[in-house]
């Protein structure tokens, strides 16, 4: 049985600037699914999510920056009651001297037993001057929980690139295919074609 609260949102930021706050208070049996798409600008996203009992929460975040753009995500998912599940997946690509900050906290309160919470942040850097600061954190006060977090920072895979080019796919197209592939598990969550097109347009400018 699911509760009355069911929210699904795509938050699309195209070269947005400023500090933006997002607050969600999800009641018992509620479901929340958020997809952040942040393309450049100079934006600071402060996201606070509170989960009641037996909630299900998924947050996706995609960020692409070039030039001197700065993108920040500061997210706290707080499991206030037992038996809720939450997943966070943030992926980004940074070129030129762009930078991103990811600070993610999973907080599990004292009596929030049977919590399952996951958080991942993966970033591709296209050169030596792009920068990511990633800070995944867990703060757990209950003892019967499953939680994990992880972060990776990588480069485009050279063997993949050569394989694509050896089949006649041009360098620029091959790089774009790799980038879209890297982001694919988040892009799959987006139904709005204009947003997907905006992501492709942004990658074309990298």
């Amino acid at each position, binding site marked *: 049985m699911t509760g009355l609260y069911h929210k699904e949102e795509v938050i699309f930021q195209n070269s947005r600037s400023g500090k933006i706050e997002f607050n969600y208070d999800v009641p018992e049996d509620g479901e929340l699914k958020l997809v952040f798409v942040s393309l450049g600008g100079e934006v600071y996203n402060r996201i606070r999510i509170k989960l009641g009992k037996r909630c299900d929460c998924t947050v996706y975040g995609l960020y692409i920056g070039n030039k001197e753009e700065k993108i920040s995500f500061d997210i706290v998912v707080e499991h206030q009651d037992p038996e809720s599940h939450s997943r966070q997946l943030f992926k980004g690509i940074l070129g030129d001297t762009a930078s991103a900050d990811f600070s993610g906290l999973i907080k599990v309160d004292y009596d929030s037993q049977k919590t399952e919470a996951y958080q991942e942040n993966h970033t591709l850097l296209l050169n030596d001057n792009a920068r990511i600061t990633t800070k995944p954190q867990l703060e757990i006060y209950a003892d019967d929980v499953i939680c994990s977090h992880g972060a990776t920072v990588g480069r485009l895979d*050279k*063997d*993949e690139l*050569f*394989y*694509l*080019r*050896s*089949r*006649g*796919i*041009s*360098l620029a*197209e*091959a790089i774009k*295919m*790799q980038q*879209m*592939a*890297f*982001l*694919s*598990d988040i892009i799959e969550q987006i139904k709005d074609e204009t947003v997907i097109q905006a992501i492709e347009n942004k990658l074309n400018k990298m």
Partner: protein
Amino acid sequence: MLTIKDLHASVDGKQILKGINLSVKTGEVHAIMGPNGSGKSTLAAVLTGRDNYKVESGTVLFNGENLLEMTPEERSWKGVFLGFQYPVEIPGVSNVNFMKAALNEHRKQRGLEPLSASEFLKVMKEKMAFVEMDSSFSSRGVNVGFSGGEKKRNEIFQMAMLEPTLAILDETDSGLDVDALRIVGTGVTRLKTPQNATIVITHYQRLLDYIVPDFIHVLYDGRIVKTAGKELALEIEKRGYDWLIS
């Protein structure tokens, strides 16, 4: 079609190819055999433009053009194909999108319009059947979760799609069971025409039962030390390489 003259190449400062001379004409099948570390895969990598290999000296002409000056994709457009010893897995790129991008780029280079979705799928289906690949592979990530044999069949499928004039098959028989070997071997043979040519790099004689070579070259320590007809493979199978290199 292909003329290699006195080719020297190195990897990380280490000299691997030490003066290769090889001439391949249309309609021919050449096998390159030799023990591990003799430079077989380096030759394939240099011919297809892998970037960590450095050509020190020598020339490679492909249909009169300097192959060594071309990017990997330009070599592909000109008709060079490498069947990889270790095909690369590309999660997030489906086989169908990969081949559509490749084939349509080839068409664009020849001044042709891209194939329509239905035309493309028809060609793809036909070529997949050719290597006995299940159609479910088309939507899967490139080589992701494929068995060794499936990866090699996928290489031959790509070769069938792109119809190269020069196919270089690098240890395509490694890791194949008997059935996959038959499918790959007969697949390559059926793709052979009087207008194209094949270089088969292999350790063993068994692939050459299917792909019968016109010439066998033995590569050792960066040089071709012997060239003979197909009967040489049988002799190598029996006697090994020692008698050729000592």
